[in-house]
């Protein structure tokens, strides 16, 4: 390989080398950090919520008539909905679903009135149908019993002293691995853990410890509002949604049916910003790579045109077409490598800057840099291939031409 003479020749025309090298360096720094952010967002967007998202939807009901009785309405609604064709199960909830971005939450402790909660958790107030309706997996203990479900109103806040928690929360509270039968406290109220489900995310996608959730056996009806989580048979969700909306409307004229959304739509809305960010950063990377590739093509084309005589001379002195092709590829490799070495430093400088200036930013994992190197080496080689091929077609007889 001709590394040394190529490098020494490049050192005699530094400007183009520096410009392309800087372009490569900046592209690497931005590309690696942007890719890392995109991957973080994608990872978040594809984080499993723990529930069945494909077949489920939520729907709200709000009574407005003076004689509206929320408890009898809920009982009638649940009985009616659970018997609709295509419905697998229905749970009343306090309006909470993973990624819903609103809901209840507090801290639970291992002692009454702990100054600082042991874990910050979401509070799902649900009934004995919730595990089936949400599509959760009970990994230990048991489900709620129907007689444990209380009806919580403004005047009656009493609830059965049992709870089902997520496995992640169980491990946090009881690292020895056995949470069943143990007590936890909501302020000074004790609850016995009767079941552990595999996973159920908090409703807030940005929350810390997003996998810490507690389910209380409660029908919550603050005011005249109620929310149902409905699971349809596979492939029948949209059909069931229409039927549910119509049936709820028909069954009670003193309420409005509102906020009906599939959980897939809930997910899409929750992660809309992440998706937009990923698309914007992806576009920035694509634009940068295109500009860098065009820069390399432009520079290499200029050099081929400028060095036609030199290429002819090299051919006359014995260079094969392959030698000329390799010469330009090696030259590009040398320039790109110089840019990448600088770019490696810039990449971590940018990552450190993001770490200190952006909430939630993490230090770039090391393996992004070699991946970036490989991408830009490949880009450089592909970009230079056209001009290098043109150079390899310069005939050796050019060497004897006087112009």
């Amino acid at each position, binding site marked *: 390989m*001709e590394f040394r*003479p190529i490098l*020494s*020749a*490049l050192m*005699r*025309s530094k400007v183009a080398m520096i410009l392309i090298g800087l372009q490569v360096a900046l592209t690497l720094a931005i590309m690696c950090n942007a890719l890392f952010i995109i991957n973080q967002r994608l990872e978040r967007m594809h984080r499993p919520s723990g529930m069945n998202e494909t077949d489920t939807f939520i729907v709200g009901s709000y009574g407005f008539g003076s004689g509206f009785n929320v408890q009898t309405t809920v009982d009638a609604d649940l009985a009616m909905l659970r018997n609709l064709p295509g419905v697998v199960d229905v749970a009343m909830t306090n309006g909470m679903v993973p990624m819903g971005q609103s809901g209840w939450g507090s801290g639970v402790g291992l002692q009454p009135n702990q100054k600082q909660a042991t874990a910050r958790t979401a509070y799902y107030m649900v009934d004995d149908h919730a595990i089936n309706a949400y599509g959760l997996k009970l990994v230990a203990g048991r489900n709620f019993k129907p007689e444990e479900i209380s009806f919580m109103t403004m005047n009656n806040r009493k609830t059965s002293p049992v709870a089902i928690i997520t496995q992640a929360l169980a491990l946090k509270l009881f690292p020895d691995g056995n949470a069943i039968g143990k007590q936890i406290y909501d302020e000074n109220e004790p609850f016995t853990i009767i079941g552990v489900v595999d996973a159920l995310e908090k409703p807030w996608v940005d929350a810390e410890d997003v996998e810490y959730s507690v389910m209380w056996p409660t029908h919550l009806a603050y005011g005249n509002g109620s929310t149902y989580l409905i699971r349809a048979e596979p492939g029948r969700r949209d059909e069931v949604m229409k039927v549910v909306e119509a049936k709820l409307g028909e069954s009670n004229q003193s309420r409005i049916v509102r906020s009906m959304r599939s959980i897939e739509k809930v997910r899409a809305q929750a992660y809309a910003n992440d998706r937009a960010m990923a698309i914007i950063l992806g576009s920035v990377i694509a634009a940068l790579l295109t500009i860098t590739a065009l820069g390399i093509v432009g520079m290499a084309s200029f050099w081929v045109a400028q060095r036609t*005589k*030199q290429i002819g*001379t*090299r*051919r*006359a*002195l*014995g*260079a*094969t*077409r*392959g*030698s000329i092709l390799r010469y330009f590829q090696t030259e590009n490799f040398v320039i790109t490598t110089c840019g990448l070495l600088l770019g490696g430093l810039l990449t971590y400088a940018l990552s450190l800057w993001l770490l200190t200036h952006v909430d939630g930013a993490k230090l770039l994992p090391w393996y992004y840099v070699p991946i970036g190197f490989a991408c830009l080496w490949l880009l450089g080689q592909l970009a230079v291939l056209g001009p290098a091929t043109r150079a390899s077609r310069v*005939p*050796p*007889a050019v*060497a*004897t031409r*006087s112009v």
Partner: protein
Amino acid sequence: MLKMQHLSKVYRTHMVETHALRDFSIHVRDGEFVAVTGPSGSGKTTFLNIAGLLEEFTSGEFWLDGVDVRGLGDDARSKLRNEKIGFIFQGFNLIPDLNLFDNVDVPLRYRGFNAAERKKRIEESLSRVGLSSRMKHYPSELSGGQQQRVAIARALAGSPRLLMADEPTGNLDSLMARGVMELLEEINRQGTTIIMVTHDPELAARAQRNVHVMDGQVTDFDAEPSLRVKTRDADVETAAA
């Protein structure tokens, strides 16, 4: 060393056919110093390009150092060119961004010599042209005569059997031209065959034999007794025999 027989070269465009060489026959023996002369457009450079394997010919036969050149692929021609021929160009054709050492190194790298062998050959050939002390200099730091000496060193470094010189003194003043010619004569005395294309009769007169080209054909050749024959074809046949 070099034998062409009934060789022709036709340049074709969609409108015109130009016969640059027609029925061109020549035989250059080992160790000869042949000057090829002729006016502009006579076909001298086309002959040089074909003889130097820089260009292909349309028809005829061509042997270079016993190798039948017809039908050789581009890579094979490059290899043969690199091994057998050294070039000296009118405009020196040094690579401006490489120092003298690296300039002389160019054909040796294509030859595949190892680093130690290349270094030895570069130092020897630069020493032979009197420029061993300036190996780290760049072409722009040298006079025209010195640049042509570097080009000669580059041509000699691979120990070619044939040196092709295209107007080697065309860009030099008379003093420098004389120096270069003396160097070429010395190289020839040491056994290297030289074919020099020139339009300068004074230079041509210093060669052992002159071949005059006109309208793509050899119209006259020097009466060097040992090589002289009555016709061009006879020249080839006699020489081949």
